[in-house]
C-alpha cells in the first residue's frame, strides 16, 4: 500500500500530458488551429503566448478529482474497499426485495405453518435438517430469515451512518468556516468551545440523551439517534475546515471577491467552502465507519434502533444472547458489519492518499 502511495505522491507534482490515461482530448490542443494565428508578423510573440496558454490549460485539464480517481484506482486495497462498499450497499437496498421475489418472505416474516420447538436453523439448512438454499445465513429465534434481516439491518446501519455524517458535515463545515473566516476573538471563542466539547465523554452524554428521551416509536428513536450522533461528531470536521479556511482566506481570490463587494456569507459558502472539499470528503468518508460503529454500540446496548427495526448492532445484541447454541446469529451480522467497516476505512485511507498525498498516514 505504501509503496504505491509513495509513488503516487512523487507523481502528483507534475502531470505529464503524454501519460494521461483518461484520454483527455489530445488532438484538439496539441495542434493549434492555423486559422487563429495567421494575423501578421507583429503577432509572432502572441502566437507563442497562445501556445503556452493552451499548454497550461492542457496540464490543468486533469482536474483534482480525475487525478485522485486515477490514483484511487491504482490503490488495490482502496479499490477492494470501494467494491465491497458498493456491493454491500446495493445488496442492502435491493436484497430484501429480491429475497421476497425469489422465496416469497420478508425480513419480518415469522413462519407459522409448523410450530416447531426450535426455530433457529444453521446456515443452508431447512426445517427438516437437510441442505437447502432458502436460508443461506440460517434463521433466528423466531424462524425469520437471517440473510434478509442482515440486509435490512444494513439499510438502517448505512442510513444512520450516512445521514449522521451529513448532519455532522453541515454543522462542522459551517462552524469551522465561520470561525476561520471571522478570525480574531470570535474565532478563539468558538474554538475554545470546541476544545471544551472535545474533552467531554460525549458517548456517555449521548446515552443519557437517548435513554431519557426514549421515543415511543421506532422512527422517533431513529431520528433522535441521527440528531444525537450528528450533533456530537462535528468537532473534528470543524477543526479541519477552520484550518483550511485560515490558509485560504488571505489568498487573492478572496480579496478579489471582497473587493467586488461580495458579502461575507457568500464568500464563506461560495468561495471558501468549495475549496476545502478535498479534506472534507476524506474526513467524511472516515467519519461514516466511526458513526456506524457508534450506532452499533448504542443499538447493542439497547439505546439505539428499536424493534421492529433492526441494525447490525441490534442484530448482534440478539445474537449474543444465544451465542452458545446458535452462534450464526451473532457471526453473520457481526462479520458483515466488520467487513463493511473494514472496507470503508480502507476506502477512506485510499481517498486521503489520492486527494492529498501530503496528508498521508495517521
Amino acid at each position, binding site marked *: 500500500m*505504501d509503496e504505491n502511495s509513495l509513488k503516487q505522491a512523487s507523481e502528483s507534482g507534475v502531470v505529464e500530458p503524454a501519460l494521461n490515461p483518461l484520454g483527455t482530448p489530445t488532438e484538439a490542443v496539441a495542434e493549434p488551429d492555423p486559422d487563429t494565428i495567421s494575423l501578421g508578423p507583429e503577432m509572432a510573440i502572441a502566437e507563442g503566448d497562445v501556445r503556452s496558454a493552451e499548454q497550461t490549460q492542457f496540464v490543468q485539464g486533469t482536474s483534482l478529482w480525475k487525478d485522485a480517481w486515477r490514483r484511487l484506482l491504482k490503490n488495490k486495497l482502496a479499490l477492494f474497499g470501494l467494491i465491497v462498499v458498493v456491493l454491500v450497499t446495493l445488496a442492502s437496498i435491493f436484497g430484501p426485495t429480491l429475497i421476497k421475489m425469489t422465496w416469497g418472505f420478508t425480513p419480518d416474516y415469522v413462519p407459522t405453518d409448523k410450530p416447531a420447538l426450535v426455530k433457529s436453523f444453521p446456515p443452508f439448512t431447512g426445517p427438516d435438517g437437510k441442505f437447502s438454499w432458502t436460508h443461506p445465513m440460517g434463521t433466528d429465534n423466531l424462524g425469520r430469515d437471517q440473510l434478509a434481516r442482515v440486509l435490512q439491518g444494513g439499510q438502517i446501519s448505512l442510513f444512520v451512518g450516512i445521514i449522521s455524517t451529513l448532519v455532522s458535515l453541515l454543522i462542522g463545515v459551517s462552524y469551522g468556516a465561520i470561525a476561520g473566516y471571522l478570525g480574531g476573538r470570535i474565532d478563539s471563542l468558538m474554538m475554545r468551545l470546541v476544545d471544551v466539547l472535545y474533552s467531554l465523554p460525549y458517548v*456517555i452524554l449521548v446515552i443519557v440523551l437517548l435513554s431519557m428521551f426514549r421515543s415511543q416509536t421506532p422512527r422517533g428513536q431513529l431520528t433522535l439517534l441521527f440528531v444525537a450522533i450528528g450533533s456530537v461528531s462535528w468537532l473534528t470536521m470543524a477543526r479541519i475546515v477552520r484550518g483550511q479556511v485560515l490558509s485560504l482566506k488571505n489568498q487573492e481570490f478572496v480579496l478579489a471577491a471582497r473587493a467586488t463587494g461580495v458579502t461575507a456569507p457568500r464568500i464563506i459558502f461560495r468561495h471558501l467552502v468549495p475549496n476545502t472539499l478535498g479534506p472534507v470528503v476524506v474526513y467524511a468518508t472516515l467519519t461514516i465507519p466511526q458513526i456506524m460503529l457508534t450506532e452499533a454500540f448504542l443499538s*447493542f*446496548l439497547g439505546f439505539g434502533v428499536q424493534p421492529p427495526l433492526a441494525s447490525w*448492532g441490534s442484530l448482534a445484541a440478539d445474537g449474543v444472547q444465544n*451465542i452458545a447454541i446458535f452462534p450464526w446469529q451473532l457471526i453473520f451480522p*457481526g*462479520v458483515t458489519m*466488520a467487513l463493511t467497516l473494514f472496507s470503508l476505512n480502507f476506502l477512506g485511507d485510499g481517498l486521503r492518499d489520492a486527494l492529498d498525498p501530503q496528508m498521508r498516514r495517521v
Partner: protein
Amino acid sequence: MIRFIIKRLLVTIPTILVVISITWGLIKLAPGNFYSGEKRLPPTIEQNIRAKYGLDKPWYQQYGKMLWQIVGHLDFGTSLKYEGQSVNSIIARSLPVSAAVGLLAYLLALVVGITAGSIAALKQNSKWDYASMTLAMLGISLPNFVLGPILVLVFSLTLYWLPPSRWDGFFSRNIILPVVTLSAIYIAYIARLTRAGMLEVLRSDYIRTARAKGLSEKDVVIKHALRGGLMPVVSYTGPALAFLLTGTVVVEKIFALPGLGNYFIQASLNRDEPLIIGIVAFIAITLLLMNLLVDIAYAFLDPRVRY
C-alpha cells in the same frame, strides 16, 4: 509550567460544572419521571414522593441544591433503585473493577501495539508491515461486542480454557478475556500511530547522525527513534481514555462485570437520576484530569513543547 497547570485547572472546573448541568438538564427536560411506571400513582402518594425528593420546589432550587451537594460536599446523593446505597459507595465499589480492566487493557495495547508498529516501520513494505497493518485495520473495524462473544465462543465454549464471564477478583483467569477484548482496538490504533511516528522519525537528521557516529541499530532504535516516534502515542492517551471508558461499558456488559459502565447502563435504563449524574460527573472529572496529566507528560517528554 505552573501557570499552565493553574490555567488548565481553571478551565477544567467550569467544564465539569457544564457536564453536570447538561446531564441534570437532560434528565429534567425528559418527559416522565422516575417514580411512576406504567400505572399512575394515587395523587397523595405522588405528592409525598415529590416532597421527599424535593421535586415540589422550583427548578432553580433543585438545581442549586444538587450542585451544592456535589461541589460543596462531594456527595452525589442516594441511589433511587439500589435502596439505601449512596452513589459514592457504588462508585467506590465499581471503580476498581473498571480501572483494573481498563488499565490492563491499555498496558497490553501499549506493549503489543508499540512492538507491532515499530516492526512495521523498521521493515517498511515488507510482509511484516503489510500483515500488521492489515491486522490493525481489522482491529479497528471489528467492534468489541462482536470480538468479545467470538472469543468466548472459541476459548470458553469450544476449548474450555477460560471462564466465559463473571467477576472473580483481580487475580483470576476471568479477567483475561475482557482485557483482550477491550485492548484489541487500542492495539490497532497504537500500532498505526507508532508506525507513522517511527517512519517520520527514522527519516530525520538526528537519526542519520546517530547512525553516522556508529551507534548500533539497536541503540538507534531504542534510545533515539522510539523516544521521538512515540510522541503521537503519548498524545493519543487522552482520546484513548475516553474510548476506554465507553469500551468498558460494552465489555462489562458482555462479561457481566460489576464495573462503573455496567452500573451506568443500569442507571440509564432505570432512570436512577442521582446515580446517572454521579457516574457522568465522575467520568468527566477523571477524563479531564487525565488529559491534563497527559499534556504535562508531553512537555516533559518533548523538550520542544512549551506552554
